[in-house]
């Protein structure tokens, strides 16, 4: 027998369930408990950059909106800097910029939305520039392990993006493009399954 490796195993994921809001957005569950609910302010009031609003729905495999989803957003500031110690430029991140947000859907319509700033391009692996994008993580009842995806902008040049170009079927790249519906307003629908299924990632 070889020596044992002795790594621990990652804790298995479980669905967030239908009442995820109790823990992560209690105001939406119907009660006030925390002085500060986290995740409502992604960019802060002072960060420079183009202010944008993103809205969408998450659709299930039958085409119906998923009304109990929670999304988290992680993004760079307008200069492409993440507010995190492993970003080599973290010291220059925009003042008050958090980069992280958490939103839930409207229980009646399934629409979610958040206000932020448009991120700048970020340097990816091997020095390749990644087009501006938001990193999204989606959990809900029926989703056993959180789904990762990215949202890109249709009004940016995404032709050289190294992640977009990893998607073998070119038409599936479009599932990651947010449509510009008005100045500063984008629509990004996520399709969990079936026709037009969004590209999800194992990161």
């Amino acid at each position: 027998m070889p020596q044992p490796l002795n790594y621990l195993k990652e804790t298995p994921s479980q669905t967030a369930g239908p009442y995820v809001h109790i823990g992560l957005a209690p105001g939406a569950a119907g009660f006030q408990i925390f002085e500060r609910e986290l995740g409502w302010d992604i960019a802060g009031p002072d960060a420079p950059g183009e202010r944008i609003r993103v809205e969408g729905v998450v659709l299930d495999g039958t085409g119906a909106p998923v009304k109990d989803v929670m999304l988290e957003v992680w993004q760079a500031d307008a200069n492409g800097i993440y507010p995190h110690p492993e970003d080599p430029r973290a010291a220059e991140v925009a003042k008050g910029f958090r980069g992280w947000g958490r939103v839930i859907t409207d229980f009646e319509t399934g629409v979610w939305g958040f206000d932020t700033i448009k991120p700048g391009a970020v340097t990816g692996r091997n020095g390749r520039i990644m087009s501006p994008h938001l990193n999204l993580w989606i959990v809900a009842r029926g989703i056993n392990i959180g789904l990762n995806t990215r949202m890109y902008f249709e009004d940016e040049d995404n032709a050289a993006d190294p992640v977009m170009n990893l998607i073998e079927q070119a038409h599936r790249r479009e599932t990651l493009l947010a449509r510009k519906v008005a100045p500063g307003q984008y629509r990004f629908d996520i399709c969990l399954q079936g026709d037009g299924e969004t590209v999800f990632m194992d990161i």
Partner: protein
Amino acid sequence: MKPAPKPAEFYQRDRLWQPPAHAPNYKTSVPRSPRQALLSLQGSMSEITGPVFGHDDIAPLDNDLLKNYAKTGDPVGERIIVHGRVLDENGRPVPKTLVEIWQANAGGRYRHKKDSYLAPIDPNFGGCGRTLTDENGFYYFRTVKPGAYPWRNWVNNWRPAHIHVSVFGTAFAQRLITQMYFEGDPLIARCPIVQTIPDPKAIEQLIAPLDMNAAIPLDSLAYKFDIVLRGRRSTLFENRLEGN
């Protein structure tokens, strides 16, 4: 001040250990699971970074579910302490990371406008809490043991007593939501959500043992629940991320 760590990747997630998206005995997973394969991405700055939280974000009572929604007295139920450590796959502690929990009350009722189960709301119990791990990765909560509750899956399905747990780690790639179960609960083996996890060893990792050493005599029992997040690659590989 410590120098900023060099960018590092994370060990690949073991998708044979984790539950698959499509687990048909948990019926809602059928229309909510992707049919196409996931796109495998090596970590870039977008994946190896993640939100940072501090004590400004939370209040001192946020980890005490006996007190954080108390109106006229303490909630009804078995008083327990849930404590443990957040580690990575290398066994290293994950300090200063945000742990959030939510749960039903002692009767299995959630304080949520969408929960219509006939067991009553407890006026002194909210059911959520949050805390930051300390510099050695330790965390604890004080709460009541949640009750089992019925759900519409098969005709007569009941969830085991459980506490939902959300953890961040240091990177968006480590983000995890799971559920903690209680040692000895006969409903665990009967639950289609538990059984979405294929490996019995992996299921055991979600079952918190009774921890008499941490119980407080004449006050509270205790359960221990350690959480393991993906391991960060050692320095051996660190200079490969940006260059070559």
